[in-house]
């Protein structure tokens, strides 16, 4: 086991199961099977759980510990509201495992937070309703089964988008470094695209780089993708992906966070969400990771959770692949190599699967509908767009390069790039442009189909 869990907010769950063993006692956290009544009572408990998890400094471990002591989230809230109860709560909290801080102070902080939440319960609930966010507690039937079996499942998931997206028949996490190379992004996009066409939900972390490429390709393929946030929904990070986040929702994907909506992204929140990424997926694929990349934490969680884990090997000279190679070397036999798209599909056991063509009832073509091949996409474009897209086939380019390769005047190149970007066929950053969406896979074949002017 990598030392990934040791410093994270879920410290004990990483390896030393003994310390929090009590909270994981079957009699401890109430499991969904036990809540027989899904009526008003259940709704109140749901709200109480959501309120508890809105308290700063109160993580899953504390939640389950309190629950084990008091039986229900509502009981904990009631306790927090009174001065007498507060002392009792402090008793429960006093033994919190807490590496970095004075335990007494942290307990007091959490108790204050609980009291505050108990006072402001109505306001918080109203705000949730107004924000359009939904949440799932571990007791809800819709809670994803893949997460429920984790050692310490998130007690509450805050969700934007359809809940069903979290429980797709198959789900694969595609993760990697934020400092991805162009090749890495292309690989991530191709994997996500191929799997999405087979109806597999793609899970990732909405970060820039590999994560973004995986989400983007799934959205373009009209597949389902789930983004697990390292922050609260109202503090979406990175801001650069706000638009991508909206498109994920628009293609019936979901954004998920176990943090309350107003939680800021911090150093600690990202490793913590990584266990949710791997937990929501049957398999985790690391596309590019430098040594010490956060993506390796996700991969290690996948192994810890008994899920499949894949890594895309790279050149031994490539910095962005050093982590993948080190990981493969460290876990021979456990981590598998991505040898190609077809091979990956075979290794995932999806080989026999045919792209389903079921309409999803909303009139839009489903993910599984056949997408036009890059050559066909090229053929559907106007002459200027085809010339500029053709010029992009040779690799990412500046406007200068495109003008030279296409022979078009700069004004035309600029306008055409806008059109390609709007169609989702090109993206720009730092003054460089590259192909995206349906043209990503276009290689030499696409090249050949483009008559150079």
């Amino acid at each position, binding site marked *: 086991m990598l030392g990934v869990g040791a410093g994270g907010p879920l410290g004990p769950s990483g390896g030393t199961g003994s310390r929090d063993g009590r909270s994981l006692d079957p009699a401890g956290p109430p499991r969904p099977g036990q809540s027989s009544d899904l009526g008003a009572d259940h709704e109140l408990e749901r709200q109480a759980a959501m309120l508890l998890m809105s308290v700063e400094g109160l993580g899953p471990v504390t939640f389950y510990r309190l629950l084990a002591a008091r039986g229900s989230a509502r009981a904990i809230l009631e306790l927090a509201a009174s001065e007498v109860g507060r002392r009792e709560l402090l008793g429960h909290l006093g033994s919190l495992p807490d590496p970095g801080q004075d335990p007494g102070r942290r307990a007091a902080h959490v108790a204050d937070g609980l009291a505050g939440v108990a006072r402001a319960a109505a306001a918080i609930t109203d705000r949730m309703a107004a924000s359009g966010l939904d949440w799932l507690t571990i007791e809800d039937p819709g809670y994803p089964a893949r997460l429920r079996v984790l050692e310490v499942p998130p007690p509450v998931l805050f969700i934007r988008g359809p809940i069903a997206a979290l429980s797709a028949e198959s789900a694969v996490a595609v993760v990697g470094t*934020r*400092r*991805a*190379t*162009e090749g890495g*992004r292309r690989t991530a996009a191709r994997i996500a695209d191929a799997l999405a066409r087979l109806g597999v939900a793609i899970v990732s972390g909405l970060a*820039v*780089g590999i994560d*973004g*490429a995986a*989400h*983007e390709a799934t959205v373009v393929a009209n597949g389902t993708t789930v983004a697990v946030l390292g922050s609260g929904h109202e503090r979406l*990070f*990175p*801001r*650069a*992906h706000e*638009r*991508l986040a909206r498109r994920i929702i628009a293609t019936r994907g979901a954004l998920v966070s176990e943090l309350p909506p107003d939680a800021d*992204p911090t150093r600690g929140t990202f490793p913590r969400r990584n266990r949710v990424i791997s937990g929501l997926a049957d398999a985790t694929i690391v596309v590019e990771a430098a040594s010490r990349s956060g993506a390796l934490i996700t991969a290690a969680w996948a192994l810890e959770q008994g899920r499949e884990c894949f890594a895309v090997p790279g050149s031994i000279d490539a910095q962005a692949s050093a982590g993948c190679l080190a990981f493969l070397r460290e876990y021979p036999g456990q981590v598998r190599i991505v040898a190609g798209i077809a091979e990956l599909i075979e290794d995932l056991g999806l080989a026999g699967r045919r792209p389903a063509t079921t309409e999803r009832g909303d009139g839009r073509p489903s993910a599984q509908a056949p997408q036009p091949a890059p050559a066909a996409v090229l053929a559907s474009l106007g002459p200027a767009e085809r010339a500029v897209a053709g010029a992009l086939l040779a*690799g*990412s380019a*500046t*406007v*200068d*390069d495109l*003008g*030279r390769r296409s022979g078009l005047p*700069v*004004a*035309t*190149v*600029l*306008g*055409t*790039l*806008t*059109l390609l*970007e*709007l169609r989702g066929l090109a*993206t*720009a*950053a*730092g*003054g*460089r*442009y*590259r192909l*995206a969406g349906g043209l990503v896979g276009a290689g030499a074949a696409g090249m050949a189909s483009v008559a150079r002017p």
Partner: protein
Amino acid sequence: MLASVLSATLQGIDGRVVRVEVDVAPGLPGFSVVGLADASLQEARERVRGAIRNSGLVFPPRRITVNLAPADQRKTGASLDTAIAVGILLGSEQARADGAWALIGELSLGGELRRVPGILSMVAALARRGIGRVVVPAESAAEAGLVDRIAVHPVADLAAALAVIRSGRAARPRSNPARVDLAGSGAAADPGQPPAGGPATTATGPEPEVDLADLRGQAAARRALEVALAGGHALLLVGPPGSGKTLLARTIPSLLPPLDPSDALTATAIRSAAGEGPIVELDRRRPYRAPHHTISYAGMVGGGPMLAPGEVTRAHQGVLFLDELPEFGRDVLEALRQPLEDGRISIVRVARAVTLPARFQLVAAMNPCPCGGPVGEEVACRCRPGVPERYAARVSGPLRDRIDLWVEMPRVPPASLVGLTPAEASAPVAARIAGVRRLQIERQGGLNSTLGGSRLRRACGLGARERERVIVLADGLDLSARGVERLLRAARTIADLEAAETVHLDHLDEAGRFRALGGRPLNQLAV
């Protein structure tokens, strides 16, 4: 005996006529100046005393009272020295004047007249008051001569000034106005004085002009600059160090069309008031100001005891280039909002306020993030998460909102520089810009950047397909209502560059490219 002469002071960039009344009365010898004179004018007493004595005249041992009217206006600067000295000499009957005179100029202890800032504005103010003749320092002859309807009498020293006002004619030919005779007068020991006739150093200094042909590649940025200058749009260049942002900006002076004469007079008055000079002719070049990012608030906005114009005013009718935009002080950048909105800047000081013109075009440049940003294809930004966002956030939302065109400048790899065909030079681009500006003035009386609302829509004349495209662009590029207006303005200018009557789809698409970056963080490689 009471004597009265006219002079002028400078407030902001405007001249204010001041009547200098001097009463030379019997009593204990004394010399006082009243009428809201500030510290620099109290010092005038010592200069006047020395100048009179060293001109071979007698400083009267009487009770001398100088009153500066109007009394409610604060007066500052050394421009009144000569008038005070002449008033004293008239009052003590050591001189005679033929009619009413105005005199402007600082005095040296040796009696020479020195140049002061803002002569042009002061003489213009006197002319507006119907005052027919003015005595100015010889150095400022050309500058004062730019004003019509007033006879300018340049003199080298106090004695010459007395001769002029007695006879009404120049005492000597103006052919030798420089201080030839100073060498013998023993007044050379005056280290505070800048060398006569030498160019005054300014904040930016005279930068060598760069031609567009000197810049390799960067077709997108060149195009954006052409569009921006043609339509008066604010432009932001974003790129890593070494991508040529500053070089591109330095081509701006070679691209701007000249000012017409009346605008040139305003520009020259501003330069004069700012202490640039000596001004020898009407300068028709458009101002190009590039203050360093360490500039103070007062330096940007204007201020100081004389409410001297700041950079925003000195860039009036021209371009204000701010390199390393996020490095400027926050208050300095916020101060740009008022002038960007209404073309003026108000400076308010205790009991004084002045509004100066500041209709400049903003061109700014910045790195995408503190580390310099992504380099080439394979190296991403090396900043810690959140750092680039904070860096970009130093340029506040309201200021970003006022930037019309955004363009990214990737670093040009040396290898690709070799193969590039020589770039277009400044001259043809400048000709296009001048033509398109004329077109806009004829059509709507101002540049496209001043259009808004219904005037903008009328000028664009969008058809049904174009309107549809605007909606698609607004949606796809996440444009706000204000963003759509900026898109349309830029598209109008792009259409003008092609001499198109109405805005077409191509123009909208290209304008969209310059708006696409507006809402996006700057350091990202694309997903």
